[in-house]
C-alpha cells in the first residue's frame, strides 16, 4: 500500500489492486465540513489521483459520527458581497465537476450524516453506497439556512431522482434514512458496516450503469407539465414560507422551471442564485439562528451527569408528552398518574409518537418497553431525574414535592415543569431547596425544541449544569433563565397574546389579527395560540402576571372561561374548532386597521423582551433571541426580537411606543431597558 500524506484534511491511499481510498478527516474538528481550504486540498488531490490512473476512487470519512455535515457555515459570515460569494461557490462547483469528469469510477461510502455540500459531493460521484444503519441520514437542508444547494446539487439531484422527489427533498430540507435513500435511488446500495469496503470494490469492479429515474419521473420535465408542476410546488411552498421572507425555495423552483441551457450554464445559474441568497438578511439571520442553536447545544456539555432513568409525575398532556419524549430518546421512563385511564392515554399517545418518529417496529417496541406506566410511583426511588408535571397549583405541587424528596436518590435531579409558580415558593417545603430546578417544556413537547432551565434563588449551580446536561441528553435545547413569573418565554409572549385578545374584544376579527401576525413571520397567530394553550391556562397565568407585573386582564377572557370555552381542547374559544382546526370566517376582511395591529402586537412583545433583558431573566440578548426562535417560532428570518429591534432602529421603536402609549394607554410605555440597549451598541 502506498501512502501520500502531505494534506491536512485528507489521507490518500492506493492499495495493491489499484483502488484509491481517499479519507476525509478534517483537522481541528469533530465534524467534517467543506471549508475553502478543504476544497482546495481536494482539488489538488484529484489532480494527483488522475495522474496515477487508479482503478477507481473511493471517498470515505474518517469521523465515526458521519460522512460530511455540509459546507462550513462559519465561512458564510465572512462573505461581504455577492461577487465574493459567487467566486467561492464557483470554486466548489469546479471541484465537484472534476470528480464527475474523472475517467475512473468514483464512489462514496456514506455512514452517519451526509448533508448539504457533503451530499452534493456524493452526487458528483458515479456511485454511492450507504451504511445500513439508523444513524445514516442524507439530505440537502440548505433551505433552512435561507439558501439552496450550490455545488451543483440542484442540477445533479434532479437528474438522479427526477424532479418530483428531488424538489421535495430540497424544498423541505428534510433528510432521508438509508432505506428511503435506496428506494429513491439516492444511493445505489445500502450495506451493513462489515461489507462497506468489500461492496465498494465489487461495484467498481462491476461498473454497473449509474441510477437514472424512470420515464414517469422524467415526464415532469416536459415543457407544459413542468409549468403545472412548478405552480403546484409554489402553492405548497406558499403555505409554509412567504416569497418575501423566504426567497430560497422560490428561487429553487425558478431554477428548475426555467433551465438556462446546457449543464455548464445551469451550474452557473445555480451559483448566481445562491450568491444572491447567501448575503441576504434572511440567510444571515437563519445562519445566526443556526449558531445560536449550536450555542444552546453547547450549554449542555458542562457536566458528566448521565441520566438513564427518568420518573415523570403527572399523566396530563404535558407529563405524558415529556415521558414519551424521554423514552423516545432512550431513557427508561416511569410515568406516574393517579388514574389508569390517564396512563392508558399516555401510552397510546406515546405509541403514536414512536410510530411517527421511529417507524421500524423493533425500535417502536423497544421504546414502548422503556416507557413504564407506574401508578404507584415505584420508579421514584431509582430515577436519576424526577420531573413533576402535575396540575399548576402551588399547594398541590408543594405537597407532592415534600412527599417525594425523601424517597429520591441523593444524586437525583428534582425538576418541576411549572410554567408560572416561582421556584422559591415551591422549594420552601424541601429539606434541600437547592436541588429544585425548573424544566419548562413547551407544548407540543415533541415539536418544541426549547426547554427553559429555571434557576431559583436557591438552586445550586451544579444542579443547573446537571439539568442542562439532561436537556441536551434528550436532544432538546436548554435555555438557562432566572425564576420570575412566566420565566422568559411566556413572560414575553403573554403581553402579545393579551393585546391580541384585547383587540378581539374591541371588535377586530380574530382572523385579521392572526393573519397579520403570520404575515410578520410568526408560525401561528396569537389568538389561535391562546386557544391552543387553553384560555383557562392563559387566564391563570394572566392573573399571576397581573399581580406581579401590573398587566391588565382583557375583558371577555374570564367570561369565556366561565362558559367553559377553553379553546382547542373544549372545541371552542375565540375560534370554534372542527377536527382540531379552527373554523375561520372568510367574510371578515382585514380592512384598513392592519398597520396598527402589527404595531400593537409586536411592540408589546419587544417591550417585554427588553424588560426581561434589563432585569436579567436571561443572560444576554443572543440567548433571548434563541429562546424566542426555538421556544415560540418567532420569525427566525428576523433573527429574534432583539436582533429585529436593532435592525429596525431602537429610537424609532421608542418613538413608536410613545405614540401607542398616547393612543392606547400606559401598557405601551417604553421600558427603561431600551436606553441600556442603545448604550451597549
Amino acid at each position, binding site marked *: 500500500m502506498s501512502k501520500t500524506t502531505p494534506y491536512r484534511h485528507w489521507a490518500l491511499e492506493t492499495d495493491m489492486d489499484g483502488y484509491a481510498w481517499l479519507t476525509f478527516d478534517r483537522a481541528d474538528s469533530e465534524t467534517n465540513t467543506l471549508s475553502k481550504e478543504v476544497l482546495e486540498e481536494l482539488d489538488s488531490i484529484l489532480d494527483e489521483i488522475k495522474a496515477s490512473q487508479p482503478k477507481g476512487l473511493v471517498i470515505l470519512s474518517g469521523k465515526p459520527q458521519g460522512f460530511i455535515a455540509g459546507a462550513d457555515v462559519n465561512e458564510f459570515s465572512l462573505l461581504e458581497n455577492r461577487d465574493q460569494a459567487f467566486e467561492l461557490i464557483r470554486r466548489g462547483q469546479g471541484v465537484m465537476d472534476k470528480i464527475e469528469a474523472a475517467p475512473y469510477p468514483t464512489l462514496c461510502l456514506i455512514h452517519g450524516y451526509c448533508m448539504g455540500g457533503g451530499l452534493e459531493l456524493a452526487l458528483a460521484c458515479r456511485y454511492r453506497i450507504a451504511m445500513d444503519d439508523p444513524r445514516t441520514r442524507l439530505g440537502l437542508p440548505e433551505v433552512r439556512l435561507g439558501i439552496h444547494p450550490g455545488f451543483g446539487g440542484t442540477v445533479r439531484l434532479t437528474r438522479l431522482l427526477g424532479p418530483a422527489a428531488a424538489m421535495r427533498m430540497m424544498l423541505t430540507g428534510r433528510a432521508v434514512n438509508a432505506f428511503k435513500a435506496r428506494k429513491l435511488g439516492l444511493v445505489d446500495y445500502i450495506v451493513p458496516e462489515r461489507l462497506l469496503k468489500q461492496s465498494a470494490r465489487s461495484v467498481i469492479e462491476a461498473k454497473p450503469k449509474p441510477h437514472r429515474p424512470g420515464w414517469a419521473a422524467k415526464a415532469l420535465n416536459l415543457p407544459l407539465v413542468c409549468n403545472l408542476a412548478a405552480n403546484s410546488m409554489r402553492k405548497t411552498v406558499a403555505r409554509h414560507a412567504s416569497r418575501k421572507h423566504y426567497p430560497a425555495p422560490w428561487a429553487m423552483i425558478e431554477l428548475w422551471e426555467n433551465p438556462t441551457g446546457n449543464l455548464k450554464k445551469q451550474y452557473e445559474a445555480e451559483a448566481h442564485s445562491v450568491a444572491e441568497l447567501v448575503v441576504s438578511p434572511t440567510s444571515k439571520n437563519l445562519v445566526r439562528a443556526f449558531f445560536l442553536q449550536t450555542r444552546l447545544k453547547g450549554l449542555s456539555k458542562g457536566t458528566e451527569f448521565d441520566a438513564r432513568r427518568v420518573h415523570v409525575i403527572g399523566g396530563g398532556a404535558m407529563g405524558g408528552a415529556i415521558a414519551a419524549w424521554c423514552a423516545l430518546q432512550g431513557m427508561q421512563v416511569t410515568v406516574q398518574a393517579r388514574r389508569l385511564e390517564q396512563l392508558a392515554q399516555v401510552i*397510546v399517545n406515546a405509541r403514536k409518537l414512536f410510530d411517527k418518529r421511529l417507524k421500524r417496529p423493533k425500535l417502536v417496541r423497544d421504546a*414502548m*418497553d422503556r416507557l413504564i406506566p*407506574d401508578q404507584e410511583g415505584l420508579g421514584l426511588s431509582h430515577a436519576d431525574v424526577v420531573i413533576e408535571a402535575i396540575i399548576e397549583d402551588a399547594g398541590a405541587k408543594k405537597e407532592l414535592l415534600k412527599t417525594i424528596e425523601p424517597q429520591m436518590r441523593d444524586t437525583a435531579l428534582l425538576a418541576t415543569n411549572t410554567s408560572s409558580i416561582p421556584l422559591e415558593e415551591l422549594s420552601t417545603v424541601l429539606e434541600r431547596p437547592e436541588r429544585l430546578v425548573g424544566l419548562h417544556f413547551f407544548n407540543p413537547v415533541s415539536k418544541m425544541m426549547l426547554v427553559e432551565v429555571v434557576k431559583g434563588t436557591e438552586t445550586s449551580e451544579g444542579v443547573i449544569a446537571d439539568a442542562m446536561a439532561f436537556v441536551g441528553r434528550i436532544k432538546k435545547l436548554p435555555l438557562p433563565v432566572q425564576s420570575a413569573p412566566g420565566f422568559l418565554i411566556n413572560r414575553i409572549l403573554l403581553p402579545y397574546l393579551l393585546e391580541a385578545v384585547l383587540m378581539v374584544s374591541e371588535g377586530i376579527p380574530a382572523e385579521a389579527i392572526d393573519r397579520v401576525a403570520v404575515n410578520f413571520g410568526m408560525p401561528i397567530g396569537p389568538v389561535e395560540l391562546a386557544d391552543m394553550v387553553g384560555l383557562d391556562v392563559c387566564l391563570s397565568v394572566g392573573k399571576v402576571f397581573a399581580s406581579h407585573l401590573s398587566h391588565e386582564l382583557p375583558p371577555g377572557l374570564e367570561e369565556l372561561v366561565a362558559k367553559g370555552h377553553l379553546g382547542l381542547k373544549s372545541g371552542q374559544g375565540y375560534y370554534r374548532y372542527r377536527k382540531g382546526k379552527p373554523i375561520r370566517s372568510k367574510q371578515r376582511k382585514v380592512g384598513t386597521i392592519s398597520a396598527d395591529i402589527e404595531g400593537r402586537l409586536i411592540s408589546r412583545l419587544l417591550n417585554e423582551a427588553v424588560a426581561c433583558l434589563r432585569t436579567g431573566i436571561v443572560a444576554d440578548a443572543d440567548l433571548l433571541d434563541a429562546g424566542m426562535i426555538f421556544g415560540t417560532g418567532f420569525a427566525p428570518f428576523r433573527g429574534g426580537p432583539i436582533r429585529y429591534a436593532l435592525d429596525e432602529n431602537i429610537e424609532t421603536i421608542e418613538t413608536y411606543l410613545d405614540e401607542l402609549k398616547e393612543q392606547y394607554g400606559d401598557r405601551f410605555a417604553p421600558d427603561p431597558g431600551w436606553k441600556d440597549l442603545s448604550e451597549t451598541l
Partner: protein
Amino acid sequence: MPVKSSTQTGGYTPAGSAARAVYIVDGNRTPFLKARGKPGPFTATDLAVAAGRTLLVRQPFSPSAFDEIILGCIIPGPDEANISRIVALRLGCEEATPAFTVQRNCGTGMQALDTAAMHIATGRADLILAGGTESMSHSPLLLQKPMVATLGKFYRAKSPLGILRAAAGIRPRHLAPVISLLLGLTDVTTGLSMGQTAENLAYEFNISREQMDSYAIESNTRLAEAQDEGFLEEISPIFDAEGNYYDHDDGLRRDTNLDKLGTLRPVFDRPFGNITAGNSAQITDGAALVVLASEDAVKKYDLPILGKIIDCHWSALSPARMGLGPVHAMAALLHNQRLGTGDIDYWEINEAFAAQVLACLHAWSNGSFFTKELGFEAPFNPIPPDRLNVDGGAIAMGHPVGTSGARIVLHLLHVLKRNNAHRGVASQCIGGGQGGAMLIERGEELSHE
C-alpha cells in the same frame, strides 16, 4: 420407600441437608385475559415483559444483577424461540445474563420455579427471575400437511404450467386450518382430550354434573369476593397500544348460577358428557413472574422476603387419569416432609376442571385409593374446603397453561400472608399424566438468623 417417584426425592431443605435456602422475594403477574376468539392484545413475550418490568422497577437491584432468567411457556409463537431470552433482553437484563425456557405442559410455570429453586439451592445462582407466560389466544393456526406439500410444489414450479398443475392439486378440504391449541390439549398417546380425561375421573369417582357446576360457581364467587376485597395484590395493570388498560382477571362470571351453567352443552364428550365450558378452566392469556434469591442475595441487596420454597415433587401416572396428578405429587411431597393435612394451612390445586379437583379431593382421603394406587397404608385427612383455592381458581380466572403454576405459588404466598399463616401447598395436574406439588412457607426473616 413406598412412594413411586419418577424423578427425584427429598427437598431443598430437609433436615440435615446441605442445600441452601431458597427465598421468594417478590412476584407480580398480569391480569388474566380471557381469549375471545381472536389473538388478544398481547403476545406471550409482551405479557412477560409487562409483568417483569413492573416487578423489576420495584426491586432495589438493577436487572443486570440476575444470574439467570428461567421462564416457562408451552405455546410460544414462531418468533418466540427460547422466549425467556427474548424477555430477558427486552427487560434490560444484561446481554451476559443467560436465559432458558422450560416446558412440562401444564406444570410449566411451577417447573420454572422448581428449576430456579434448584439452581439456588445448589449454589449455582443467587438471584433468578422465574415464572411463566402464555398467550393462548395467539396459538397459531397451521396448514394441513397436503396443503403444505402443494405449496412446496407451487414454490418450486418453474413454468406457468407447473404452477397451474400445483394449484390444481388443492382441494377444498385442504384449506381448513389446523388449530394447534386443540392439538396441544389432546394427549397423543391415548388420543383423549384433556376434557375426556376429566370425564374419566367424573365416572370413576361418581361426580355429578351438578357437583361440578356448584364447584364452578364457588370458584367464581370466591374470585369475585377476592377482587372486591382487593386480595389480588400480585396483579399489576397492563396497557395496550390502543389506549386500553387491563387491571383485573376478566374471565370472571359474576352473574353465574346453577340454572345458567346447567344450560351449557358438554364440550368434550358430545352430546352426553358432563364437562362444559362453565366447569372447566378458561382459555386465557397471562404471565406471572417471581424473584427467587439465596440468603447471600437477600443480604447483599437487603431484600424483603415473601416466603421460602421448601420442596417440590413431581409424579406421573396414566395419561387417561392425568387429573389425579396432584394427589400423587402432594402425597409424596408430604410423606417426604413428614407432614399431614393438618400441617398445611392453605392449599392451591389448579382448577383444570371442576371434576378433576373434586376427584382429587375424593382420592385424598380414600383409603383403598391410597393403598392400591400409591402403596400407602392410610390416606390423608380431608382437605377443608375453606382452605383450598380460597380466592377462586382457573375456572373463574382462566388457565394460561405455562403460567398457572407460577400463579398459584405466588398467590398462595399472599394468602398465607393475609391470614398470618405459615405453610402452604400448591399443586397442579399435568396433561400427559403427571402432577407437581410445591411446599412453601411464609416468613419475613432469614432462616439462619
